[in-house]
């Protein structure tokens, strides 16, 4: 019996011939559409045949429909009271923004359930190893599972499409906004699927990976917002700033007849004032999927292109872009020299619109999703060198 310890790397000449040529089927990083499709079809067949899936689709649709109807009724009653814009200007954008957010919210809830148990659930059911030993590569298995859970998530998105269309038809919306938002919703659902897959390959128990995925989603959406708010005092303080304002001390005396005086001249002064440096923390807002969608959606239009209608997506866009720019280098408080439009604050939205934020947010989210997918691939690579605690190979 030869019991000498030898490193497990076996003779490099024997099988190196196969790996030097084109990558053979089944080695970790090889990908074929055939392999991905095989896995995705298997996953979807497994899911579609469970009736619960159909039921949850129906429940999802009913829920979105209910909220859409309520939003419609609400904005309608609000819109008729509004002084500007009227129905067409308010109902559409409000409804659209609200529905898009609601669909995103539900999608972020549903997607983890579709992906966060894909690997460890299979492992616990004893069906993972039998797939791994075939000529499917780890990459094909993971991408197939990603594709399947994404397609399933897209089914939920498809169910809500009629309601998004309804919100669009309520008027005042940019047609491009519908296309952009739906595409972004799809991309963000894929991100959540990728994160879920990563966690499902990382943890042994399905409950653990589901919780971790939900925590990640909550961190992206809620926690980041809370941290942003709480960190405001940390990035703020009293600072010397240059200010352009009226010098009331040098104002001419009031006209004794009318009681009105000429406006004082404006001039530059230095003074200490409280400044908030959100340009250091804006990224906390940018990674938020809701912000990504809101920022990317083209602004609402109205009939005469004059009034800024109430548009929740635009409000968020405005807020986050302002936050990114941080405080201005100098403050102009000289209202006397402003145009009448500026005084009404109407065009103010457009004047200090910064560059878009959503590409950063989307990129960060896509990186997270890709990270999850890569992690899953690495964890499914066979043969296993080390087994994580508590896992069985088969």
């Amino acid at each position, binding site marked *: *019996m*030869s*019991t*000498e*310890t*030898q*490193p*497990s790397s*076996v*003779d490099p*000449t*024997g*099988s*190196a*011939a*196969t*790996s030097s*040529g*084109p990558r*053979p*089927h*089944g*080695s970790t990083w090889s990908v074929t559409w*055939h*392999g991905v499709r*095989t*896995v995705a*079809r*298997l996953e979807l*067949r*497994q*899911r579609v*045949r*469970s009736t619960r899936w159909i039921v949850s689709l129906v429940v999802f649709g009913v829920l979105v429909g209910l909220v859409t109807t309520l939003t419609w009724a609400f904005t309608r009653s609000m819109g008729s009271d509004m002084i500007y814009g009227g129905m067409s200007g308010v109902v559409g954008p409000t409804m659209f923004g609200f529905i898009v957010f609601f669909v995103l919210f539900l999608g972020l809830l549903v997607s983890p359930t579709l992906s966060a148990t894909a690997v460890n659930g299979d492992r616990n*059911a*004893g*069906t993972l*190893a*039998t*797939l*791994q*030993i*075939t*000529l*499917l*590569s780890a990459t094909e298995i993971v991408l197939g599972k990603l594709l399947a859970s994404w397609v399933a998530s897209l089914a939920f998105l498809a169910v809500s499409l009629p309601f998004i269309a309804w919100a669009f038809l309520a008027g005042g919306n940019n047609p491009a906004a519908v296309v952009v938002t739906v595409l972004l919703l799809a991309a963000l659902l894929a991100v959540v699927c990728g994160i879920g897959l990563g966690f499902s390959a990382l943890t042994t128990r399905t409950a653990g990976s589901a919780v971790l995925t939900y925590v990640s989603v909550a961190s992206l959406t809620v926690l980041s917002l809370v941290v942003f708010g709480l960190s405001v005092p940390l990035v703020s303080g009293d600072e010397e700033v240059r200010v352009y304002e009226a010098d009331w001390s040098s104002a001419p005396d009031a006209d004794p007849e009318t009681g009105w005086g000429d406006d004082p001249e404006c001039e530059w002064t230095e003074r200490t004032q409280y400044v908030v440096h959100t340009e250091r923390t804006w990224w906390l807002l940018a990674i938020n999927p809701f912000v990504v969608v809101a920022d990317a959606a083209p602004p609402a239009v109205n009939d005469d292109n004059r009034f800024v209608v109430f548009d929740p997506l635009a409000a968020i866009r405005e807020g986050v872009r302002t936050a990114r720019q941080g405080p201005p280098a100098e403050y102009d408080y000289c209202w006397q020299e402003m145009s009448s439009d500026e005084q009404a604050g109407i065009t103010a939205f457009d004047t200090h619109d910064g560059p878009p934020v959503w590409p950063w947010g989307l990129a960060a989210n896509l990186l997270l999703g890709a990270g999850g997918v890569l992690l899953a691939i690495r964890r499914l690579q*066979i*043969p*296993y*060198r080390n*087994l994580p605690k508590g896992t069985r*190979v*088969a």
Partner: protein
Amino acid sequence: MSTSDDRTPPAEPDATAAPSVPAPPPADPSPPTTRPPVTVPPTSSSPAHGGIVARGVRRSFGAVHAVAGVDLDVRPGAVTALVGPNGSGKTTLLLVLAGLLVPDAGTVSVAGHDPTAGPAARAVTGWMPDSFGTWDSLTAREVLTTVGAAYRLTPEHAEHRAAELLDLVHLRELADSPAHVLSRGQKQRLGLARALVHDPQVLLLDEPASGLDPRSRVDLRELLRELAARGRTVLVSSHVLVELDEMADDAVFISQGRTVAAQEVAAVATQWRPWRLRTLDLDALVRWLEAAHVPWQPEPGAPPVGDFSPPDEVRPARPGGVVVQLDTEATAAALLRDAVGAGVPIASLAPASGALESAYLALEEERR
């Protein structure tokens, strides 16, 4: 090695059997820094055959040495039994052979390929784990066509192969029912069919008979014999030795992660082991055994044989049996002939335990 191609149905069983030699590097002195190349010691007559060769395989999980030094030669065209008690490392060894685990040390060659080096070995290996699940919502047929697709069979070929295998494991009536309605034994048969989808050169079966009814066990035995006859390499792990007795040609005994013995089952049959001798007249048999100086023991669990000293004509003949230790079947034949010649009404003479069981228990005995 043609395993990266889409596998087409081999026209002949041996078409894919091209024994690719895991050639020891031909005396190539170019890498001076490396150790002497790891070669498979030519212990058997065919050192680099298409079967399984393992040398010094070790694998630990933390402090547990699941496999602590296994040497294995499994020849093609034969059924080899992997025998060992629970927790002896059988399953871990099979995971290494199937290409799911990297051994900590040692070399493995499966049909000429290194299972740790890439998918080439996986392409020619069929593996049936000891416990596995099925995709519950898929029908039995879909399970097999899916696995076929995973092995890069064309859809037509996978379909054809699925139908063939469903016939083979007698699941044709259940072919289009979802897998979750299958019983445990039926799932086990489906698992066997799944391991055979790509017509593997090497078959690794971990406790394949557990949960099978007697008819299915016979079918399994015949199937494995047929696969071996067609040149396949079959390694079956089990601790139910009786069923291995009838299908295995070779046996490898492992205990506590080590190979403790490897022998041919036929050779095991020539060892001393207990035989059960049954008669219609126990008193006559015992008298004859005493006279012939054949050592015997009462059958385990039988009532005491009693006092035979006075020839008792009054007592009627009573049936019964004893256990005798015999070394070969020739000895058994001689004993039988003599006893019958002496007028003892012999009913049967058969090994009290299977050949593997005796060998296994003898090994256990040595280890104590």
